[in-house]
C-alpha cells in the first residue's frame, strides 16, 4: 500500500485539471441550493434537514455518476490504464486510490452545503447540530457507497457516457425504486425461508438513511454502507484483473 498516497493524490488532483469537474460541482451547488431553498421555505424546522438529506441522496444519484464515470473508463480509452497496471502498483491500490480521490472530490463538493445550516440560523431557525452532523455522516456514507458502485461500473467500459448512465440507473434503482417494490416481492420463490420484503428493505439505501435523518448514527447502518463500499472495491479489483482472462 506504499503507493496509495501518490496514487490518491493524482486521482484527487486530476479533478481540478478538468473543466468538466467544475461544471459538475457548480451544477451540484445550484441543484442542492435550490432544493434546500424550496424545502426550507415550506417547513422552517428540523424536518428541513431530514428532507434535505433524502433529497441530496437523490441528487447524488445524478451527480455521483458524473464524478465516477471517468475514473477507469477514461484511462481505458486513452490507454493510460496500460501504463498504470504495468507499473509496480497493485490492483487494490489502484481501486482504492480512485475511490478515495473521487470521495475527496465529492466531499469537497458537498462541503459548501453546510452553509445552508448557517443560513437557517440567519433566518431565525435553531438547527439541531447533532442532527445536522448525523445527516452529513449519513450522506457521506451513502455517497461512498455510490462512488464504489460508480467506480466498478466505470471499470467495465471504455465509454464514459455509458458508465454514467449505467451508474445512474443502478443508483436510482437501489436508492429509490426498491422502495416501491418492497411490498410486491412477497410472492418470490422460497418465500417460506426468505423474507423478501425484509431483504429488499435491507438492500434499499434509503432505509439505512432513516436513523441518520433522525440524528442517530447507528453502527449497523455504517457497517451496511461500508460493506457496499467493500463490495464495489472488490468488484473493481476483479474487473481490473479480468484482463488476465480476456
Amino acid at each position, binding site marked *: 500500500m506504499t*503507493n496509495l498516497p*501518490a*496514487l490518491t493524490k*493524482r486521482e484527487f488532483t*486530476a479533478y481540478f*485539471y*478538468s473543466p468538466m469537474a467544475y461544471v459538475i460541482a457548480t451544477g451540484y451547488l445550484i441543484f442542492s441550493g435550490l432544493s434546500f431553498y424550496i424545502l426550507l421555505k415550506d417547513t422552517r424546522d428540523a424536518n428541513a434537514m431530514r428532507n434535505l438529506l433524502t433529497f441530496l441522496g437523490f441528487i447524488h444519484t445524478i451527480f455521483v455518476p458524473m464524478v465516477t464515470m471517468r475514473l477507469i473508463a477514461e484511462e481505458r480509452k*486513452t*490507454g*493510460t*490504464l*496500460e*501504463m498504470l*497496471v*504495468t*507499473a*509496480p*502498483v*497493485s490492483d487494490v491500490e489502484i481501486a482504492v486510490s480512485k475511490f478515495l480521490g473521487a470521495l475527496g472530490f465529492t466531499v469537497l463538493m458537498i462541503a459548501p452545503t453546510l452553509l445552508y445550516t448557517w443560513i437557517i440560523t440567519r433566518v431565525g431557525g435553531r438547527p439541531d447540530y447533532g442532527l445536522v452532523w448525523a445527516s452529513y455522516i449519513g450522506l457521506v456514507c451513502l455517497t461512498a457507497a455510490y462512488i464504489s458502485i460508480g467506480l466498478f461500473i466505470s471499470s467495465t467500459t471504455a465509454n464514459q457516457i455509458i458508465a454514467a448512465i449505467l451508474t445512474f440507473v443502478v443508483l436510482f434503482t437501489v436508492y429509490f425504486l426498491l422502495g416501491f417494490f418492497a411490498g410486491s416481492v412477497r410472492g418470490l420463490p422460497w418465500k417460506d425461508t426468505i423474507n423478501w420484503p425484509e431483504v429488499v428493505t435491507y438492500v434499499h439505501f434509503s432505509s439505512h438513511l432513516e436513523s441518520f435523518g433522525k440524528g442517530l448514527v447507528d453502527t449497523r447502518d455504517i457497517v451496511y454502507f461500508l460493506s457496499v463500499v467493500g463490495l464495489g472495491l472488490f468488484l473493481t479489483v476483479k474487473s481490473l484483473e479480468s*484482463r*488476465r482472462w*480476456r
Partner: protein
Amino acid sequence: MIEVRDLVKKYAGVTAVDRITFSVEKGEIVGFLGKNGAGKSTTMKMLSCYFPPTAGVARVAGFDCVTQSMEVRRRIGYMPESVPLYPDMRVEEYLTYRARLKGVPRRERAHAVNEVVSSTGLMDVRRKLIGSLSKGYRQRTGLAEAIVHKPELLILDEPTAGLDPGQIRQVRELIKELGKRTTLLLSTHILNEVELTATRILLIHRGRLVASGTPGSLVGGHQTARRYYLEVRGPGDAVNAALQAIPNVTGLSWSPAADWHGFKLESVPEFDLRAELAKTVVGNGWDLRELREEKMTLEDLFVQITRTDEAAPGGGVTQIRPAPVEPAPAAGGPA
C-alpha cells in the same frame, strides 16, 4: 534477461502469438521485426505483464510474468505503441509521479527526473502540459518515463514511429546509449534502424518466430546464392552464352538493350566470381561498364520470409534460361 517458452496468446478467435520461444541475454539489444499484425505488440504486452499468456511461460530477470508480476514490473521500463500519457499533467510533474510509482526513492527523484529530461531533450518543455506537446515530444516523454527508474530491461514498442528524420536519429542515438546500460527489446518497421542499433533480430510472422540472429548472420544464413549485376556492350547473345559458360554460374537473366545490356547473375555462395566475370567480358573484347555484387539486405530477407504465399521461398534470379527473360522481381530490388 528474457526467457520465453511456447508463448501463446489468443484473442477471441484470433491466435496473435503462436508458440514463440526465445531468450534474450543481459546486455543485448534485440530488434523485434514483423509485419503489421504479426504479434509484436502482443508479445511485448505479455512481457510487461499487461496481460498473461494464454499458454506458455514468460520470465523476465528470472521472475515469472504471471505469478511474480510485481517483481517483473519493478525491473522493466515499457513504452507501449500508442505512448499513453496524462494530457493534464506537466512533463516534469508526470515524470516525478511515475518515478515515485516505480519506487525511485524520494531523495533521488529530482535527480533521476533531471537526468532523463536532459538525456531525452525535454529541457525546453519540462513545464509544459503534456497535452500541448507535439507527437515527437510526447514520444520523448514516454521514453523518459520508461527509463526514469533505470530499469534492467527496456521494452519499447516502435519508439521512433511518427518522428521526423532528425528526431529519429536522436532517438536512435539515445537507444544506442541506453543499450550500453540496459537490455533492450524494441520493435520497429524501420529495418535500417535495426541494422544500426540491434545486436540481434527476432523476426516473427503470423505469431510465429521465423528467424533469429545477428543482422549479418541472418542475411548470410538465408543467402543461398551470390548475386551480381553487370552491364556489357557487345553482341547480346554471345555475351549471354559466354557468361553462362562460366563454371559455378547457377542463374542468369538478360535484359537486352540497344547498347548496354544488363545481366543479372547468380552463383554458388562459396566463390566470388567477379574477377572471372570481368576477365570473360574484357577477354572477349566487349566493354564492361559496371560490375557489382548485390548483397542481400535485411529488407530483402524480410520480404522473402514474410511473403504471404509461404510455398515459394527463395526468389531472386530464376534458373538458367537460354532466351532473354524479364528480370525476376526480387532480384531487381534496391541494392
